[in-house]
């Protein structure tokens, strides 16, 4: 079962953190169709987050067609977010980790790495539209 890490200091609203973590778990293959999400009560007892926040996140996921509540049984995964098959992200994450390691060894700090990533993404986007 998925375990949410919710950061009150984050600029991302808490309900969106839950939505993003479920989507991410589906992409990484940690969650799959048929799996059960923790109940609102379970999430709340573990995180002290407001129950309405969890409900809002689950409703958003339901609207996206990713989960479905079954009366008396809980909320179940019924779909995957569009995108590459599960495992793709895990594979790319490994090669990216290798790249980050190389960048750090070359003396880049996190800020330089982030700015390099942004510049590369922008350049790639311009290349595609050109």
């Amino acid at each position, binding site marked *: 079962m998925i375990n949410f890490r*919710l950061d*009150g200091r984050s*600029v991302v*609203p*808490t309900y969106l953190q839950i939505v993003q973590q479920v989507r991410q778990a589906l992409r990484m293959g940690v969650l799959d169709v048929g799996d059960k999400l923790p109940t*609102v*009560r379970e999430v*709340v*007892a*573990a*995180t*002290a*987050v*407001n*129950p*309405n*926040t969890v*409900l809002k996140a689950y409703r958003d996921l339901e609207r996206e067609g990713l989960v479905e509540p079954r009366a008396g049984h809980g909320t179940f995964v019924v779909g995957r977010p569009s995108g590459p098959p599960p495992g793709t992200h895990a594979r790319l994450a490994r090669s990216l980790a290798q790249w980050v390691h190389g960048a750090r060894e070359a003396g880049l700090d996190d800020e330089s790495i982030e700015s390099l990533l942004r510049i590369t993404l922008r350049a790639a986007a311009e290349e595609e539209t050109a």
Partner: protein
Amino acid sequence: MMASSDVLAVQTRGLTKRYRRVTALRGASITVPEGRISALIGPNGAGKTTLLRLLAGLARPGSGDVEVLGGRPAQHPSFLANVGFLAQEIPLYRRFTVGEHVAAGAHLNSRWDGAYVRQRLASLDIPLGQRVGALSGGQRAQLALSLTLAKRPRLLLLDEPVAALDPLARRHFLAQLAEAVADGGLTVVLSSHLLADLEQTCDHLILLAAASVQLCGDIDTLLAEHQVLIGPRKDTTAIERDHTLVHAVRTARQTTLLIRRSGPVIDPAFEAADVGLEELVLGYMSQPAGPRPGRLTTIGEQQ
């Protein structure tokens, strides 16, 4: 299962309370819909305890209306059965055991969920045979909350419940509270002079300063209705005419405005940013004291 509701658990209009010459609360109009966890935030002496005592029926208003669960607060069994109030000084007897407190609760309350309180205390590792004096501060707070929840109240009023707790005990306390709300049928108003502790647990905010309500409403709605504008130092009369200026910081070169929007902001000189809850609260608190315009006190709520 709880759900967002439009039914109001609490509604006050122009509530005023004076103690001798001091006005503890001035013209307070608030609404709290059922099923919410509302953070009552304000500096010490802002009127938080006074407002909670008025809602609990422990004090009578000088003027104005107060409606709690559809009735007027009173020291009457039918009202008190539905309202749980936990004062700043937790009302426990140090020489008595946990079990004796549970037995007293069963004796004193017409509605009492003994199974609930026993199961709660077991999951919290608080033994029934323990004397209250031997419990930690966190355990005492948990015990008081468990005893209050065993009444199965529909409204729970908590005065600075987490102020004296260490971070871990605070989290456990708030988790127990959120779990009780998840079970349904419960609305909570809890006060604190700090917002950071409560931010994730609460979905509703009442902001008090200098005896007046500065803000009241659904937190997400309040955040969406406000915006920070960052731009050069220049005349902002046009912006102030179209929107409500809450707080402004002006340096020699830069202007930072916290506004409540009335529609989109169209001024290319200014960069618009979303506002965080802490920023919003501090913006209102650093305003000159005094009541806000009436419409501001009920943002995001029906009148």
